[in-house]
């Protein structure tokens, strides 16, 4: 694995991106026409990029795992057989300026969809055709708590991305490459190699950012405490009073991977398109089987979401399912905050001092 670090001037980087656009579809943070929020959208000109964003509603993962996509098309042949056509190719794309939490979320999705022997075809196609460029945050949103979840503000794992950028102000970007693909693409740039000073600067920015968090959660005993408190009143109270089962939390969550499939047949019944769409455990029918629904109550569904992200995920995949991006609470119509629920349980276990709650 090839690891290199360069200093790239900002103009240089943008012109490099423009060149990349000849081969790749560029996707990056862009201010939306309506509402003024920033979203990951296809970029026509690099001027459209908004690199100071803190939070997008939908993570860049929607370009690796689309909320709706076709898995295959099946034809009924005249001889009674079936012809199954899988998706063969996807466009080549660059995901630019992905924050640390979202890089972590992509690692999580990799664990789900690229498990050896059980690879998901579509996800692999998207992933292989995507150049992933990270950009570290330069400010912290009040809802962010990535530091608590170990997924930010700087991205530590040396895996998953192609290029990782840190904004060093006037000096430009510290660019750390991973793997052959990014190195060869950057070769044309003839950028200066980074020095220890630059890494020191990066570390300083990291230290500064760590002081900016307004939200945190202590994860030391989180897993066992949550698993122990499956019947805690916080579940039913929050569910009854505030949870709408609208599924927004799961739809915006960058690690939520559940999907459902749906067949659409043509009127002549010959052609069938099998699509999958991101499903949600908050939806009433999610755990419906013939004759029973294992999570028919709203509180059991809410508990499933929180305990999965913060507890059972660890046993499943060896990491938290929550990357601390704060999306679920930001886009919850009633502002349900999973860290608050977890803290309430910890308080009742005597593990958390109420006064320390933020």
């Amino acid at each position: 694995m090839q690891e290199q670090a360069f200093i790239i001037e900002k103009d240089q980087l943008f012109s490099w991106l423009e060149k990349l656009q000849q081969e790749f579809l560029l996707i990056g943070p862009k201010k939306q026409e309506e509402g003024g929020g920033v979203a990951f959208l296809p970029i026509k000109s690099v001027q459209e990029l908004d690199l100071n964003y803190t939070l997008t509603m939908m993570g860049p993962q929607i370009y690796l795992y689309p909320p709706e996509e076709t898995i295959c098309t099946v034809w009924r042949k005249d001889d009674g057989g079936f012809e199954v056509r899988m998706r063969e190719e996807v466009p080549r794309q660059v995901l630019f300026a992905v924050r640390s939490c979202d890089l972590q979320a992509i690692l999580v999705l990799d664990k789900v969809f690229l498990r050896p022997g059980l690879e998901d075809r579509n996800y692999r196609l998207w992933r292989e055709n995507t150049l992933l460029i990270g950009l570290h945050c330069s400010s912290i949103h009040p809802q962010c708590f990535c530091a608590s979840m170990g997924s930010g503000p700087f991205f530590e794992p040396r895996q998953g991305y192609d290029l990782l950028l840190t904004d060093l102000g006037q000096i430009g970007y510290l660019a750390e490459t991973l793997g052959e693909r990014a190195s060869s693409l950057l070769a044309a740039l003839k950028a200066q190699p980074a020095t220890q000073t630059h890494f020191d600067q990066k570390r300083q920015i990291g230290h500064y950012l760590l002081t900016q968090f307004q939200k945190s959660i202590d994860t030391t005993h989180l897993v066992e405490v949550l698993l122990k408190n499956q019947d805690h009143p916080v579940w039913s109270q929050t569910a009854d009073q505030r949870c709408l089962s609208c599924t927004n939390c799961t739809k915006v969550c960058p690690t939520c991977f559940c999907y459902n499939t749906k067949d659409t047949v043509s009127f002549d019944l010959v052609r069938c398109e099998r699509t999958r769409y991101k499903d949600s455990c908050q939806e009433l029918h999610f755990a419906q089987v013939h004759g029973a629904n294992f999570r028919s109550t709203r509180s059991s569904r809410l508990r499933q979401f929180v305990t999965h992200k913060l507890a059972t995920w660890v046993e499943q995949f060896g990491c938290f399912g929550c990357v601390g991006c704060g999306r679920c609470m930001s886009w919850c119509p009633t502002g349900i905050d999973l860290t608050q629920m977890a803290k309430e349980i910890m308080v009742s276990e005597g593990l958390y001092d109420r006064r320390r709650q933020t």
Partner: protein
Amino acid sequence: MLVKKKKLRLGVFKYSCCAGCEFELIYFQKYIRETFDNVDIIYFRMAKSGGSEEGPFDLVLIDGAITEAWQVDQLKRVRQVARFLLPIGSCAVNGGIPAIKNHTSELDMEKRVYQDITHVHSIKTHPVDDYVQVDGYIKGCPMGRKDLYEAFTSLLLGKRPSFVNYSVCVECKIKGNTCVLISYGWPCMGPVTNGGCGALCPSYNRACYACWGPMEDANAPALARQFEKMGLAPDDIFRRFTQYGSTKPEFRRGAELYGSTTQPF
């Protein structure tokens, strides 16, 4: 081998409504040819003269809410000869707009419109499933084409259709719409409203007004209380939960927090 298709014997019955859903059916966008190729219209007054209401029917679509007693009688007869019966559109599914009158006394309501009310035979507005068992709902105002397509192709294939049963929010997220409730503080009914419209209103910069009616098991009281926190007056909250689908317990529970949903005669 191709699936052997039989033409569906179709009946369409109209009760109290604007007939927009029937209209939607006779002009089922690109699929009108396929639709008419695959059905035998047995009874559909808006599209065909004559026709018998005796059935039997493979598929009966009910358009409109029940507001008069004769409709109940006919509906029950039709149910007996229908293999599959689906209410189409908000009026039939949840009372729709005609159910707004349920929150005023029936007599007052009639007197506002007619001087002589002796020829009026209205009862309170009821959705179809208050009287007969139904095999699903094609929601929408007018009914959603996606669900209509699903109903036809499923029945041709011989399986039960599966209709959209998630909230409008899901479609907003798929489209990447700015959330009008959170970003603008508008009282959007999307979180408790059944999806299928493609998050139409939020995509057009306005708050969802719940024209598809409640999503199953929606927690309307929680949203109603959120509206109160956002500064809406009680009567405004009441109106939002009674414009559509207040015959359904989901919305009624939201409305009841801010007004009376039951009225004496």
